[in-house]
């Protein structure tokens, strides 16, 4: 068992879609008890838009939902009723952290804004992850991950200069924002341990995603140069590219950082004439001859197996990797083994859960399947709030609990 530094902390989680639930998943992985709150009127929308297994179409079996919500508990609570709001506040009274990622005023309109919750629990940590942030002229804008990536500059900077900007092929910001947010929440926990104070914290998904840029924005702010799309090349390294290998749509990525790696590349690929040319010793010369060098590499590697060639290059200290797709990562690559875990789901099918990209003291963080909808409603409201079976039955009857 790995350390669980958030054991004993309880999170009331109103988040939905991907970025918010993955944030609280990171907290759950560290031992926090995360209680996911949904209602039938407002189920987590990701249940509707992610991939479903063959022959299934249910709220429980969505692949993305199950990616985002392992290690949590689920309660179904109708926040459209006064009793539902009162019960939500009762949960907060027993909690340490509250999370949401709605458009900015949603929690306030429920009466669950920071002031309301602080009145219930003075040292509560309330975290909000609105797409644009709670203030600013575009705070009401709606977007999901691909829109946040588009605003962040990553699309505009990816691709070839004479081609359109390119989508990242993944809702990328949905997977990076959670780390910013979990980091900020974990830091707030440390702050509370030292001072006894809670706080309201806000992380704009847009601002966090702009932080994914490298120096491109600084270059514009400071030097007034606007960098463009440069395909697979690099302003730092040369050669730096992606080359077709043998097989169907198989490629290798190679980049060379210095003279030693350049000579190691030439030796491995048999580029003896290029290796002799003094003007290619330094990166500036290799940048100038990039077309010629890339053509020579392309010719040499086209009949090679990307995996075998990559291993030979790595052995010589040259940065290289086969361009792996998700099929490789799930099934072929032994170095990625252990990241995914195959589980049987109560809905009668199997699925993959993914671990975090870390080992703690050599072990994976514990993982258990995402909860079924309302799986822990009775346990939480009975065990935590002390409601008896008659109370629970009445609340179900009234449509407050499901």
């Amino acid at each position, binding site marked *: 068992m790995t350390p669980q*530094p958030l054991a004993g902390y309880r999170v009331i989680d109103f988040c939905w879609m991907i970025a918010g639930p993955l944030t609280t998943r990171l907290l759950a992985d560290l031992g926090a008890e995360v209680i996911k709150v949904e209602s039938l009127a407002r189920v987590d929308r990701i249940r509707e838009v*992610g*991939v479903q297994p063959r022959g299934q*179409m249910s709220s429980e079996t969505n*692949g993305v939902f199950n*990616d985002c919500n392992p290690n949590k508990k689920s309660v179904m609570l109708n926040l459209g009723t006064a009793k539902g709001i009162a019960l939500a506040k009762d949960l907060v009274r027993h909690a340490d952290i509250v999370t949401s990622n709605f458009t900015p005023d949603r929690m306030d309109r429920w009466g669950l804004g920071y002031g309301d919750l602080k009145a219930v629990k003075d040292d509560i940590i309330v975290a909000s992850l609105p797409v644009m*942030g*709670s*203030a600013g*002229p575009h705070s*009401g*804008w*709606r*977007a*999901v991950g691909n*829109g946040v990536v588009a605003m*962040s*500059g990553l699309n505009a900077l990816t691709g070839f200069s004479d081609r359109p900007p*390119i989508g*990242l*092929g*993944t809702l990328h910001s949905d997977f990076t924002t959670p*780390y910013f947010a979990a*980091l*900020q929440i*974990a*830091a*707030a*926990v*440390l702050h509370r341990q030292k001072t006894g*104070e809670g706080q309201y*914290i806000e992380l*704009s998904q847009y*601002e966090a995603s*702009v*932080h994914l*840029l*490298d120096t*491109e924005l600084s270059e*514009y*702010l400071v030097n007034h140069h606007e*960098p463009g*799309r440069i395909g*697979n090349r*690099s302003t*730092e*390294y040369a050669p730096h590219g*992606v080359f077709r290998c043998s097989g169907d749509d198989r*490629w290798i*990525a190679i980049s060379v950082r210095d003279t030693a790696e350049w000579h190691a590349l030439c030796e491995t690929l048999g580029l003896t004439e290029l290796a002799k040319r003094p003007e290619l010793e330094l990166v500036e010369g290799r940048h100038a001859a990039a077309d010629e060098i890339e053509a020579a590499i392309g010719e040499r590697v086209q009949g090679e197996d990307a995996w075998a060639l990559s291993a030979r*290059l*790595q052995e010589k200290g040259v940065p290289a990797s086969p361009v*792996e*797709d*998700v099929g490789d990562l*799930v099934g072929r690559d032994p*170095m990625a083994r252990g990241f995914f875990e195959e589980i049987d789901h109560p809905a009668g099918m199997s699925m993959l859960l*993914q671990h975090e*990209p870390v080992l*703690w003291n050599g072990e994976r963080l514990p993982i258990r399947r995402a909860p079924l909808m309302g799986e822990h409603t009775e346990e939480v409201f009975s065990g935590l709030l002390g409601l008896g079976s008659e109370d629970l039955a009445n609340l179900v009857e009234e449509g407050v609990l499901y």
Partner: protein
Amino acid sequence: MWIIAREQSRPPALVSLPRRCEPVTLPLLGQLIVDLADEPLVMASTLLADLGATVVRVEHPGGDAVRRRGPFVADIPGNERGLAHLRYNAGKKSLALALDRPEAWAIVGSLATRADVLIAPMEKSPLAAEFFAEPRMAAVAPAAGVVDAVFRRDSDERAVTDLVGTAAGGLLYLNGFEEDAPNYPAGKLAYKQASLAAALAAVSLCMERALAGTGGRVTVSMQEAVMWTTIQTANENYWYWNKVRPGRHGLGSVGGQTIFESGDGAWVSFYQHPPSWPNFVKWVSEALGEARFADAAWEDQLYRLHHMAEVTAATRALCLTLPRDELVREGQRRSILVVPVQGVADIASDPHLRERGFFQNVWHDQIGASIETMRAPFISTAYEMKPVRAPALGEHSREVLSSVCGLDERAIDALVESGLVGVAAPVEQS
């Protein structure tokens, strides 16, 4: 002296939040992080410094790869002028140590005994590898947490760049058009994702150390960190493709095409979010006279997925009817998820970010200029993010050796004299 900061029409306003008290304390104040990371993990401790940790960046007296990397301020190279250095070393203290000499690692060991967490380089020199080997670290500093990093698990492969990281983690393959090679994403995203995982690991180690007296070791895999960003396709592969390759996404993301040209030749991201489908139907009807989507069959999400080409064609036509900014305004007014594809010039002039005080100026003594930079994205009632400058190379060597390692002035002078420790040259004020 010259000023680089862009003209601003008005001073940035701080975001208005419910405030309980005056901002007093950054949450990681008091935590000591020793940063020996190479480029892949260098942003981890930047975020920790943003949140108040004391981060001692240990770097070679001649400058390391982060400092030497261009572009540079005013395109003039120098250890103090690299934009990567100014960004990723912001808020850190610089201890210049000749890490190619064994004696330097005794000093690192002394730091480690006081540190909450050390962040190790991914590509380790023999001396670094010896220092971070588990038995030695446990003997030198049993209470300190260690964030270590590998390119891939169960592998000796060490030579890594960001390109190679995106290739190994499955992100590179998804980008580009079918007729092209897979396309390298901007932003050094493999490094970013590994750094984010490392930053959270460091705070986890701080928490564990506070609880248990010792942190332990967290090892980040860059390949897995990138895989984390592509996980929404893992079950799709498991259930459907069964090793049939999914192909590249071109102008799309998961769920089809999302990038469309607007009427002024710019680009927008237009996402068909299921709940906003009725709003889309109304818009295409009003703007294009397109009535076919009013048929009840289109209300079914699966039907739409099976006829996505028709939806995409209508979206393409709709987007061409208005210039980008008008299209976004109108789409957002209709609760449709349409936003601009922005370049860095758009971001720099975005009134939303400007009003939120996202851009702030920081004075740099070594450059003799004020540099405009972005603040960290963390907003709180307990603190405010105020960007601070990056340190000069060796600027804090004396301070760290004295206050953390307990060396006296004479001992420090001897270390400087021997070339083991570098100190920053005093800045001439103009």
